[in-house]
């Protein structure tokens, strides 16, 4: 059985989306900036997509700017806001310890090269930021508050609307990285007082290589990509027309089935969580429960086992999953998110994330519940940490 449970890493471009994109490669290939009527088709396609994305967020069309990725949108917001604010003497950025590296590494860059001062707010054991902490961190130098909508590793949904209201009251621009959240949750940028929001098409069954920034009318930030006059002079470079068309289409489809998907995913998520807790002793669920957790996220730590070994064992059984443990990545440090939640290093090394989605079936949930307990117990049997742990539990 092939089981893809890594929808948070990426999703397949859906057939309807691909179909909508196809005419914009070889047929309607005109450069939207050209004058002749042939290029109007390209221009019209981009504007249609802009409308589709805007509608899904309850934004105005003029407030959506397409980018090359969610990461680019994050870079744009942080650099574009801080660079401009610093000219006016404001150099303070408030963010959290659990952001994606697109935010954290950009913040580090701003510190290193531009003298920005950054507050990384802590989170509680479930991954929630406190609105009071945000309030207390604000100074007269604060130029931007950037707090993710929902965490990619543990799925915790932050109190975005409350933080938005606070920032609006304090007249401080508020950005949220919604790269994961936009694929699962209803987002109303007006009601939630969001000034800027980043997202990405490939997390919602659209193509890779296209993202978007929602920039509320009246919020002026410096450009990030300099060059031509595309995107109303805000984001230079010839538009990725097919990608943008795919994004618009993907967003519209997503929105039309959001409530149904949420119900199906939450039910399967909760069944997988309950099954793991029942079948595997000393399994620890990371993150929150219920509707404050992304409907598709399941993240566990298994004491005594390292995450990468589980991934490879699952891979041998045809299951694609992920780990916050960086042992599977270039860096050997454990997940900064799990450490921020207060996990010990060895538990943070032993995390395993399943993210379900449109490719998931009930049979696949059963299959994971059938093979995972055996894998964990086999690896635990060869672990000196598990041996020590069990001794302390028994004594």
């Amino acid at each position, binding site marked *: 059985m092939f089981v893809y449970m890594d929808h948070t890493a990426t999703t397949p471009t859906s057939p309807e989306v691909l179909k909508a994109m196809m005419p914009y490669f070889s047929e309607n290939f005109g450069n939207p900036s050209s004058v002749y009527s042939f290029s109007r088709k390209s221009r019209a396609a981009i504007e249609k997509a802009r409308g589709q994305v805007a509608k899904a967020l309850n934004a105005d069309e003029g407030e959506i700017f397409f980018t090359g990725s969610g990461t680019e949108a994050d870079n744009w917001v942080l650099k574009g806001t801080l660079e401009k604010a610093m000219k006016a003497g404001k150099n303070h950025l408030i963010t959290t310890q659990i952001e994606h590296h697109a935010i954290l590494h950009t913040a580090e860059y701003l510190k290193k090269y531009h003298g920005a001062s950054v507050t990384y707010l802590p989170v509680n054991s479930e991954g929630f930021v406190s609105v009071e902490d945000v309030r207390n961190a604000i100074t007269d130098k604060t130029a931007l508050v950037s707090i993710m909508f929902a965490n990619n590793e543990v799925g915790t949904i932050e109190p975005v609307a409350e933080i938005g209201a606070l920032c609006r009251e304090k007249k401080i621009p508020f950005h949220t990285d919604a790269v994961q959240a936009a694929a699962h949750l209803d987002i109303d940028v007006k009601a939630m007082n969001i000034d800027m929001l980043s997202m990405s098409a490939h997390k919602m069954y659209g193509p890779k290589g296209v993202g978007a920034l929602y920039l509320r009318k009246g919020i002026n930030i410096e450009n990030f990509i300099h060059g031509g006059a595309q995107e109303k002079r805000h984001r230079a470079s010839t538009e990725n027309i097919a990608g943008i068309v795919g994004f618009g289409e993907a967003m519209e489809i997503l929105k039309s089935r959001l409530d149904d998907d949420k119900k199906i995913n939450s039910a399967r998520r909760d069944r997988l969580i309950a099954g793991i807790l029942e079948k595997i002793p000393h399994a620890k669920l990371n993150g929150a429960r219920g509707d404050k957790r992304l409907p598709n996220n399941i993240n566990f730590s298994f004491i*005594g*086992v*390292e995450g*990468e*070994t589980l991934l*490879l*064992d699952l891979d*041998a059984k045809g299951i694609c999953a992920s780990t916050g*443990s960086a*042992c*599977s*990545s*270039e860096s*050997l440090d*454990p997940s900064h998110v799990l450490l921020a939640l207060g996990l*010990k*290093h*060895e538990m943070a*090394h032993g995390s395993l994330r399943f993210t379900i989605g449109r490719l998931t079936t009930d049979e696949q949930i059963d299959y994971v519940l059938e093979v995972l307990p055996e894998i964990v117990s086999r690896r635990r*049997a*060869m*672990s*000196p*940490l*598990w*041996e020590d742990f069990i001794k302390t539990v028994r004594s």
Partner: protein
Amino acid sequence: MALDYSQKVMDHFINPRNVGEIPDADGVGEAGNPKCGDIMKIYLKVNPETKVIDDVKFKTFGCASAIASSSMATEMIKGRTVEDAWNLTNSAVAEALDGLPPIKMHCSVLAEEAIHTALNDYRAKNGMEVIPMEHHED
């Protein structure tokens, strides 16, 4: 990033040799710490007459290359004398596994250290000179 492990690494990871403990071991050694994400524990059974390692077992917490390194290293010292086993180097372990990704080389170092610690435990218990250990910074 997906790590490219050799077939030998995958073989020793999926079917590790010499997993377990020896309750009446003649030498026990441990290396690594949970903070780094790797701990290796080695148990030796040594023939009192010939000083040959008759049996060796390991338990390892860590990634696939840590488990594969333990498995390969224990295979490589089995049947060797305690003097000879000391000469096993981390690069020999990595080579026998057809290489490890550069970022995972510390796993083979850990295997060497765990074996040296176990051998020194044996030496100390048997009135032999304890050999100073090289501690690798990794």
